[in-house]
């Protein structure tokens, strides 16, 4: 059963249509991400779930219960704010235990639960510290402990890692993932960082302009984006114009700009659509440069010129202008000790994987 059910959520700010009919089911114990560029409505949606924004229309079910008219302080959700919102005039322990004040626990039990929560986020012994003396990463952990101590049904995270530096962010990504598995609570993460969403989530909802464009697990989202825009937003994708040739049985044949003919199975077509002037998407790793003289049997090879390259140590990203095309394509190649890195201006022979093509209707 889904712990959260969003049904036809609409949100207007005056004339501005912030959320346009959001329908979404989030399963219990899931690590779910709302991903999109700034202004796409992902934070608004999170705040709708938390109860900080009321909806103009639609229903929010939380654990099967309609949340209409239930204020934020009565909802079984807790939130980690982008700024962490650690109360600066309280100690770490007072911050973490804040939500339990109303429970009127005996002091010994309160202390034990605060210690347990701090232990969970790796801050044992930090209880007596003043909140304003903490580093960014520590504040983040205090915010997590403060929210998790109440054992919410759903933990809402509003861009929790955006204020951290790269190293710290990567560390917190895996820690958050570990913590989520450990406590088994549903996490909903708002982020604009597609890499972060891919690394951490069980499922991702990609949002543009107040609408969900696609909800899918990371691999599916990366390999089978349903629109060109999703494909562009998640990772790098090359787009090539294609011409529809014919439908041959279970395959559809296309003529691809710069690459030649391709037969594509139906599951690579969005929504089974086929009559269109389509665009084909190809990830950088679906194209490869071949170095040895002989291509494998059956492999098709096209030629082009390396117009630019970015060397990342483990990988090199080439911009290759295929003969007869106007836009270069991006090709990623793993760097091996036995393999030279091509230089700018070099000729390259390129092969490609038909099974990785994605066809878009527009």
């Amino acid at each position, binding site marked *: 059963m889904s712990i959260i059910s969003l049904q036809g959520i609409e949100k207007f700010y005056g004339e501005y249509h912030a959320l346009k009919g959001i329908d979404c089911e989030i399963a219990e114990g899931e690590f779910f991400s709302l991903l999109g560029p700034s202004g796409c409505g992902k934070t608004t949606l999170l705040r709708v779930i*938390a109860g900080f924004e009321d909806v103009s229309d639609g229903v929010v079910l939380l654990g099967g219960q309609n949340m209409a008219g239930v204020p934020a*302080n009565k909802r079984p959700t807790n939130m980690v704010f982008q*700024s962490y*919102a650690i109360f600066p005039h309280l100690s770490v322990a007072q911050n973490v235990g804040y939500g339990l004040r109303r429970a009127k626990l005996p002091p010994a039990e309160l202390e034990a639960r605060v210690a347990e929560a701090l232990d969970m986020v790796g801050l044992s012994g930090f209880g007596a510290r003043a909140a304003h003396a903490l580093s960014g990463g520590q504040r983040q952990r205090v915010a997590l402990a403060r929210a998790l101590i109440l054992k919410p049904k759903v933990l809402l995270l509003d861009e929790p890692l955006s204020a951290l530096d790269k190293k710290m962010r990567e560390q917190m990504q895996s820690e958050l993932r570990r913590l989520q598995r450990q406590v088994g609570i549903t996490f909903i993460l708002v982020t604009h960082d597609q890499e972060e969403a891919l690394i951490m989530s069980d499922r991702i909802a990609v949002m543009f302009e107040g609408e969900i464009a696609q909800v899918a697990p990371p691999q599916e989202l990366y390999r089978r984006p349903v629109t060109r825009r999703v494909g562009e937003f998640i990772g790098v994708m090359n787009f090539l114009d294609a011409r529809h040739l014919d439908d041959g049985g279970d395959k559809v044949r296309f003529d691809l700009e710069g690459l030649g003919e391709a037969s594509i199975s139906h599951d690579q077509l969005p929504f089974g659509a086929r009559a269109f002037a389509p665009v084909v998407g190809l990830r950088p790793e679906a194209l490869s440069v071949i170095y040895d003289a002989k291509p494998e049997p059956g492999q098709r090879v096209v030629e082009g010129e390396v117009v630019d390259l970015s060397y990342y140590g483990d990988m090199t990203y080439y911009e290759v202008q295929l003969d007869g095309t106007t836009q270069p394509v991006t090709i990623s190649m793993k760097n091996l000790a036995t393999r030279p890195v091509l230089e700018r201006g070099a000729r390259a022979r390129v092969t490609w994987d038909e099974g990785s093509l994605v066809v878009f209707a527009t």
Partner: protein
Amino acid sequence: MRGGWLRIYAITYLVFLYLPVILLPMFAFNDGTVMAFPLKGFTTQWFVQLAGIEALHGALLNSVFIATITATLSVLLGICAARASTRFRFPFKAPIMGAIMVPLVLPEIIVAVSLLVVVVQVLDLPLSAWTVIAGHTLICTPFAIAILSSAFQGLDQSFEEAAIDLGETRWGAFRNIILPLVAPGIIASFLICFTISLDEFIIAFFLTGAEPTLPVYIWGQLRFPTKIPAVMALGTLMLLASLIILSVAEFYRRRGVARVGGNDSGGFL
């Protein structure tokens, strides 16, 4: 010399500003009834004389009473206005806030005369300490709002939402999280309003009843040349008190800025 002319200008400016003020304690300790150089000698007799004037004590108590009530009212109104202006959006916000802040720059004599007309002609009320309080609250509230706005402005809106998210009611979040965080601003604005009310003359002069405030009493004493040294002594004490109160206010204002981790901008000292 770098910035030579600017430095001379700054020094000249400070001399003009503060020389008259320095004269005050100088003559307060001068052993002579005439305010003229050369100074006669050192004495504390004027301060001793102050202690024996009954009317002065009455005026002082009256002033302190008015200043306390005024500061309390101004801060309460200031909290409401500052919170409304920093936290909420509502129609005609800018003109409303502007209208509230105008007494800051309105000539006091205009305010005083119009208040007098309203109180006496329109409302037909007797003049008393309360009419002075009404007038002082009018001119003090903008100061309270100015200070409190910066305190509320520096406050991350997430603090309040986080408290509500953790189970607090709106009022609980305000009382337990917001108020403690803006407390330094509240103390600072209270002290500044207190000082302004204590020192204010024009409105008090127009609106005071049978019992004058301290500045009005002092003005009355200036007609008698023999009383002038005692007034100087009194002025010295008031100057000292004002400086102390303003320093304490500034201390709290800065502490408040540091507490919420904001950048220090503005302030009166």
